[in-house]
């Protein structure tokens, strides 16, 4: 089960509205390398990990990704809070406004709804963990692209935090993958 903790993992306090930037950041909510996809991919994979080490790591990183979904959602919410329909239209968010108002809807930056096929499962724990390493790298690259698209320190700070988490997660997945390959080698498989 999960318990709610009524705080963000990293604070978000964006003072300047910027619906265009919100649109770019949307992809880290409901896009192919987004936090929602990462959370669900890891939490789905944990059931069939071969040992406790894998079950623990996937549970803990999957849980952290849920906290990242909340950080990204907060960024989008604050970037769009109080913006007029005119301003949304000018920022290319007219379609978004027509369908959802200013509610959050998980999509990529083009407006394609979140798609469960983003989640990579292979029925093979090495393949699964390597997918996760790929997911972390793609998310890290996306965060760098997003950082290229803004100069606002209120936005750069959480983006930079989230980017760094991808690096740490990549390292942990790599350690788990290497450990399993060593175990396989020892067992002569």
């Amino acid at each position, binding site marked *: 089960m999960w318990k709610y903790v*009524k*705080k963000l*993992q990293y604070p978000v306090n964006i003072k300047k509205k910027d619906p265009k930037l919100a649109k770019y950041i949307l992809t880290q909510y409901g896009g192919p390398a987004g936090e929602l996809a990462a959370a669900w991919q890891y939490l789905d994979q944990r059931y069939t990990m071969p040992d406790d080490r894998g079950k623990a790591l996937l549970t803990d990183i999957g849980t952290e990704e849920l906290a990242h979904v*909340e950080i990204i959602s907060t960024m989008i919410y604050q970037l769009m809070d109080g913006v007029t329909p005119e301003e949304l239209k000018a920022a290319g968010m007219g379609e978004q406004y027509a369908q959802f108002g200013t509610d959050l809807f998980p999509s990529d930056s083009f407006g394609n709804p979140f798609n469960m096929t983003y989640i990579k499962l292979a029925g093979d724990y090495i393949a699964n963990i390597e997918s996760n390493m790929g997911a972390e790298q793609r998310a890290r690259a996306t965060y760098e692209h997003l950082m290229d698209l803004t100069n606002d320190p209120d936005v750069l700070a959480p983006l930079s935090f989230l980017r*760094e*988490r991808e690096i740490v997660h990549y390292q*942990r997945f790599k350690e788990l993958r290497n450990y399993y390959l060593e175990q396989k080698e020892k067992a002569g498989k």
Partner: protein
Amino acid sequence: MNYSENCYEDQNRNMTAMKNTMTGVNNNNFNKCNYIQQAAPADLYDAYAGFIRGNMFPDLYNQYKISRPFEIEPMNEQAGMLTYVDAYCFGAHDINLYLDTHPNDRAMIELYNQYRIESENALKQYEKKFGPITVDSESTMAFPWDWNNSPWPWENK
């Protein structure tokens, strides 16, 4: 361990070439294949320094674009006290992930527990003054029901 070392020599040779083709951005160190982490508690950042970097491990830390990590600038006393909770929780959490893949590291288990206790203390102090962050806090004894009070995490007013 062995198979790790092999892949890594090649990678090291490539690294120099790669660095030369990449300008302005140092994005390489987390891709170092030969990096097998052996953490010593004294080498880690302290909780706040790790928190603002998103990483407790200096040799794993890698920056992009920004010249230095952003300091947290709390708007008020409440946000200031929350920063302590954030930082200690973060320290404990990052070490938790490390321990998942290094379950036999006794010194790091001790450090985890240090941060766990610090975060519990910071949380209690915060909740005493500003109300519950978790619904199993003692602050839920307040009348009227205090759980549904602002601020919610996504609000910045």
